[in-house]
């Protein structure tokens, strides 16, 4: 839920609550005010009637000043004066219906010593409709106020949060591997300005750390090349010694093997670092069909010797826009992978069209999750010599060049599909 929606919902909910509470309080208060007015009028009337009655001692033909219905009854002499005001219902012969009234009952004694009961009725029809009218008017104004407040709040919030959403947009698009700094725009709102500055500083720090880490990786791999060169050259000299025993030569052979693996490992890591460091930016239209044909040609002899059948269906002149070296490394690694992990008398099938490059090969059933094969240093126990970087490099190149790769294994058939 968006922040704006959330605040608006809260706003409306609380306003509604206040609305109900206000309504509940408003009705009795309104009623109280009007009843006090009515009761005052009733008492004034009663006083006038009483005045007349006290001295004339006859039931007067009295006309109400306030439009009350007045009824005077002569009765027994009461012991004391009693006044009582209450709500009651009176039968109206005109409408043949009961009508709600305010009723004042007053028991008095005239100067002649007779007891009289005065009833004064005030019909409440008008009053009730007045209460309803006032109530509706107030509620209407109140609602209008709430709607206005919610709307104003909504528009203000929307305006105020604009810089925040802009920052969010920038952050979503930002990649730490890219070369430009984040550079969020300044905002006139203090909090957002601070947020942007903090994010700028933080991303700058992360980016610098990331860059130096990448550079470190590359430099470390690079610096290892020279000691490796020295070791190799000294070994080359050492094995020329005529006096070496069989045993010593065998040990030197193992050293050679280890050095070669280390050197290849190092070259693989260096290549990955270089891709990460954007050193293969230059892209051109590469004729992938040609690259694949050349690579297959290079591997023809090996495949023949390993008795691996190679089928290919390569549409000519399929060009894609990518770095030429990476294209060559990619195809070469894919084919190497298919050859190395193949089984004797197995097969490799390569298909290329304008949408995808698919390479399938026979091999042993997969024991791990297909996706995990793209990790670094993944290798099967069969290929002791492999350093396990081949598919990691493939994945790096594929992602770097904006393509997609999928690995599927179906028992003994492994398929890598790269979609452009």
């Amino acid at each position: 839920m968006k922040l704006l929606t959330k605040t608006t919902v809260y706003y409306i909910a609380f306003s509604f609550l206040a609305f109900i509470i206000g309504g509940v309080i408003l009705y009795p208060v309104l009623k109280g005010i009007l009843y006090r007015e009515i009761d005052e009028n009733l008492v004034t009337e009663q006083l006038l009637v009483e005045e007349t009655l006290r001295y004339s001692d006859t039931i007067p033909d009295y006309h109400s000043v306030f439009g009350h219905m007045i009824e005077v009854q002569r009765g027994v002499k009461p012991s004391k004066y009693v006044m009582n005001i209450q709500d009651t219902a009176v039968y109206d012969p005109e409408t043949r219906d009961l009508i709600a009234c305010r009723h004042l009952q007053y028991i008095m004694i005239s100067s002649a010593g007779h007891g009289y009961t005065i009833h004064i009725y005030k019909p409440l029809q008008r009053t009730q409709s007045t209460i309803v009218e006032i109530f509706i008017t107030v509620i209407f104004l109140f609602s209008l106020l709430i709607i206005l407040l919610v709307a104003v709040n909504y528009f203000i919030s929307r305006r105020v949060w604009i810089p925040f959403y802009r920052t969010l947009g920038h952050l979503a698009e930002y990649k730490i591997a890219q070369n430009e700094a984040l550079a969020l725009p300044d905002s006139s709102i203090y909090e957002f300005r601070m947020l942007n500055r903090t994010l700028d500083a933080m991303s700058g720090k992360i980016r610098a750390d990331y860059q130096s880490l990448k550079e470190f990786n590359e430099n470390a791999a690079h610096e290892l090349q020279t000691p490796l060169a020295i070791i190799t050259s000294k070994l080359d000299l050492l094995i020329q010694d005529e006096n070496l025993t069989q045993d010593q030569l065998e040990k030197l052979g193992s050293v050679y093997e280890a050095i070669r693996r280390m050197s290849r490992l190092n070259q693989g890591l260096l290549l990955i670092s270089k891709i990460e460091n954007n050193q293969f930016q230059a892209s051109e239209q590469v004729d992938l069909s040609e690259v694949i044909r050349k690579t297959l040609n290079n591997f023809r002899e090996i495949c023949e010797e390993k008795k691996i059948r190679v089928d290919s269906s390569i549409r000519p002149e399929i060009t894609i826009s990518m770095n030429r070296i990476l294209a060559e490394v990619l195809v070469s690694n894919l084919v190497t992978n298919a050859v190395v992990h193949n089984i004797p008398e197995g097969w490799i099938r390569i298909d290329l069209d304008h949408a995808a490059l698919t390479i399938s090969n026979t091999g042993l059933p997969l024991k791990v999750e297909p996706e995990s094969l793209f990790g670094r240093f993944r290798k099967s126990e069969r290929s002791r010599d492999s350093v396990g970087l081949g598919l990691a490099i493939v994945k790096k190149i594929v992602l770097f060049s904006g393509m997609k790769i999928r690995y599927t294994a179906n028992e003994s058939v492994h398929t890598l599909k790269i979609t452009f």
Partner: protein
Amino acid sequence: MKILVIEDEKELAQAIREYFRKDDQVCECAFNRDEATEKLNLYDYDCILVDIGLPDGSGLDIIRDLKNQQVDTGIIIISARNSLDDKIDGLNIGADDYLTKPFYLSELNARVKSIIRRKSFSGGNEIVFEEIRIIPDQMVVSVCGHPVDLTRKEYDLLTYFLANKNRVLNKESIAEHLWGDNMDMADSFEFLYNHIKNLRKKILEKGGKNYIRTVYGIGYKFSSSVS
């Protein structure tokens, strides 16, 4: 044959010098750019090996100077940077070859010999070893005067052996020379064994001797002292 190694890693430079000197070749070392410039002004070399990253300058500048002075020396760049830009730059300004560290001395030797041969005789010369005769230009091989029909790999193998004759060659270096470094080694050793077997057989068939000796655990040696 006179070779200059311009390399600031003394151990590496000395190893290269030692390897070349075994062949009775003159090989000198320069450990920085100044020293190299001095030596290049004083003497003529058939081939120079230049490291690009020198403490007091770039090896590429040395190559540019040489080319400006129109000195026709074979130039091989040996660099730890396996970067295509460096490679293209180096080859563009006139280097003949580019070798990335780490490399095998036998591979370096083969490349130096091939460049010197191309330079001195415009590639028209022959390589002769006992009864074996190779015309590199036409890739023709004969043993005792009889032409031998070799496959491309067998031919490469033979020339590599001849460039490094009388030396023990480790099988990794041979395999890399033949197939590059994208091969699974276990496979390539097997192929190598077959190719050597076939090459030996073809030479023997035409009346040649068996010069290829297996050095157990390491690789092979091609030498005239037939076992």
